[in-house]
Structure formats: structure tokens, C-alpha cells
């Protein structure tokens, strides 16, 4: 069926099977491969994108459910004047190693800072608690989000 969807500000129309998962629409049809997948059971969170501004696990959303809605992915983080503070925070505080969970972590971090510009360590840990990282032990992800908050406060 025909869907229309706005991803990172661009409008797309595609004819898709109703069963197509949002993550596959993004990756395979729109070739936005920065959003990854890591499990089948919505437990790992590497597929997190913002749907109408809210973090969701795109492996558990049908593309047809997102029709008529706004999606923002990691490719939509960078701004015309440079990296988003979240991206810069992850670089500055070594918030990523293999880079596979990073997109999802950053999208949730972006949402968190939009709603809570000065999150505590505890609030950051809770926000990302449905997203698994095997490399960092989370410490530097927490520091990265704090760093992003500081960058944002300073700018």
C-alpha cells in the first residue's frame, strides 16, 4: 500500500507491504542505514528513532503505522552549522566504541535533552535503560550525554 512519510524533513512516498517494519523502510528502501537492528523482540534498542518526536523502537513499528507522521533518524541530527551537541558529546567523552548502538543512544539522548536540559546521571541511566551497549559499560555514554547538556547550556 502507498505510504507517505517525512524523514528528517524530507517527504517520501513508497508503495510497501503492510508488514514492512519501519526499520527496514528506513534502511532498505530509503537507504538510511544509520539506524541499525540488533534483536527481534524490542529488547536492545539499537533501532531507536524519533516518531513524532518520541523515541520508539523501529523494529516494532510497521512502516504503515508511521505513514503521515514525522520520523527523525541519526542522519537528521547534524545541523547546517555543525554537529548536534549530542554527537559532539559522544565524540568528546568516548561514548561509542563499535558504533552499533550509538545511533539509538543518541536519538534517545536528543529526546532527553529536549525535555530535560540538565539531566542527572540517574535520569540519563533511566532514559537509556531499554538500550543495550556491549562495549562501553554505559559509563562514557552517561558522560557523553552530560557533556552534550553542558555544550548546549554553553551555546
Amino acid at each position: 500500500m502507498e505510504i507517505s512519510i517525512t524523514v528528517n524533513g524530507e517527504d517520501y512516498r513508497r508503495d510497501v507491504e503492510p508488514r514492512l517494519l519501519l526499520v527496514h523502510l528506513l534502511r532498505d528502501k530509503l537507504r538510511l542505514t544509520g539506524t541499525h537492528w540488533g534483536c527481534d523482540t524490542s529488547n536492545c534498542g539499537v533501532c531507536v528513532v524519533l516518531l513524532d518526536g518520541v523515541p520508539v523502537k523501529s523494529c516494532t513499528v510497521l512502516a504503515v503505522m508511521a505513514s503521515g507522521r514525522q520520523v527523525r533518524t541519526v542522519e537528521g541530527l547534524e545541523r547546517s552549522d555543525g554537529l548536534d551537541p549530542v554527537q559532539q558529546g559522544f565524540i568528546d567523552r568516548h561514548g561509542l566504541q563499535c558504533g552499533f548502538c550509538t545511533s539509538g543512544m543518541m536519538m534517545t539522548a536528543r529526546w532527553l535533552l529536549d525535555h530535560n536540559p540538565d539531566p542527572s546521571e540517574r535520569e540519563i541511566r533511566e532514559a537509556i535503560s531499554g538500550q543495550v551497549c556491549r562495549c562501553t559499560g554505559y559509563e562514557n555514554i552517561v558522560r557523553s550525554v552530560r557533556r552534550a547538556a553542558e555544550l548546549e547550556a554553553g551555546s
Partner: protein
Amino acid sequence: MQVPAQFEYERASSVEHAIALLARHGPEARVLAGGHSLIPMMKLRLAEPETLIDINDLSELAEIEVQGDELCIGAMARHADLLASEVAGSHYPILHDAEHVIADPVVRNRGTVGGSVCQADPSEDLSAAFAAIQATAVIQGADGTRTVSMREFFTGPYDTVVGPAELLVQLRVPIHPDGGSAYVKVERRVGDWPVAAVGAALRLGRRNKITDAGIGMTAVGAAHFVAAEAEAYLRGKPATEEHFAKAGEIAAAHCNPSADQRGPVDYKRHLAGELTRRALRGAAERAMARAV
């Protein structure tokens, strides 16, 4: 990655439209709310519905508000909405306790209250919470609405009284100014299903006498998610640690847990008692705090 089998998709524009679509597509149609129970089952091909009827546009079902002396929670309220609802938390902190430990924050952005209870998973947290606070389900069909106590809502694992052409539209809970409630859960890890969990709601009269007690239990094989014998024991007794402990023993004796990798039977039974005691303690403390 696992992917669902093929199906047809319809998007409902109103409750009546959703019910009409359900009637038209028959028993092989399923309602699609947040999708966080259904879509994983479909990927595993444990569920292969012929048609999905998407009700995510029905914003009228997402309200959380007080009407008269009842707290009304729309079936399409997301877990995150309920967790964020001050009105729900002020009357029933048990709902915030429970929502705080359901899945994870991102899943809670999508999963819905109605979807969770309609999934009728024997380990569902909200089923125990709503059983404890004696909520009522409002179910709508072509001929209008009917109400069913949440204690009669579940007809078995993964099965409810909601008919094939019906839609759960709302949960209603009576508000008691003399009440307190709490929910406690043991999980192997944050975001996991419960090993066991218990919700309790108490109303206290003079000298902290228990005028009504509701105890909901999940993942321990309690009939209708209720510890009825423990509730009966508590009514009319003072809210003391000793009575809570005894109620826990009764609840543990009457539940029927089964072993899985979350724990053996004896441990789950132990938890049923221990968590009943803790939930009652928490509910009583909150009730007393309101009375002050």
C-alpha cells in the same frame, strides 16, 4: 531479522469505524495498538492475523482524567502517559509504581494500557495493578458499551472477555480519599518481565482499621490476578505488620506459580508472600500519609 507474515492493514478513524472494521474482517482480524506485544509475536509467527486494525489515530481513547468520583484511563493511553499523569499518580500511586517497572522507557512510549491488559499475559504487571484497585473495563461493541470488572476480565492466559467485534475503550477506577496503594516487583533485570509482582490497595478507617483491601498478583498463577483469600483475611483488621505478614502467607499458599528460568516454584511462592507483605506495607503508609 525475523519478519511477520503477510496481512492486510486498515487504519480506523473512530471507535465506531474500528468496531465496524472488526466486524467486517471477522475473527482473524486483530486490533493493533502500540504493537509491542503483537508485532514480536507476529515476527515469531506465533500470531498470523489476516488483518490488523490500527487504532493509533483514536486520540479520544488516550485521555487520562477524573470523571465524577472515578479515574478514567483511555485504552490508548501509552504507558508513558500513565506514568506521567499527575492525576493518576495522586489518586493511585500504584499505577506509577507499576508503570515505572514495565518494560523500558522507549517501549513505554509506544505500548498502551489497553493493549497490555488485552494481551492477557499471565505475567502482565498492569493486570495485577488493576485487579488490586478493582478497576472496571469499558468495552464497546456495535450495540453500545458494557462494563466488566477487571477481576472478571481475564478468561485464561492470553484470553479476555473482549469479543471479536469489540474494543476495550477505557478503564475506570473509583477514587477513595481514604485509600493508599503500592506495587512491588522482583525482576531479574530492569525491563524484564516479573519473577513475581504484587500490587496492594488499602482503605483505612478509624484507628487504621482496614475497611477494604485489594491485592493483585502477577506471574504467580493467582486466579484472575487476585489474592482473594488474603483480601478477605485483612478486611476489618488493623493495618499492622503482623497482619500484612499473615496476609502474605495466605496469598502465597493460595497462588499457583509454575517454574521457568525466572525461578523455581518455591522461590516464586516465597516472593508472593514477601511482596504481598511489602506492597501492603507501602499501601498502608501511603494511606496513613493521606489521612494526616
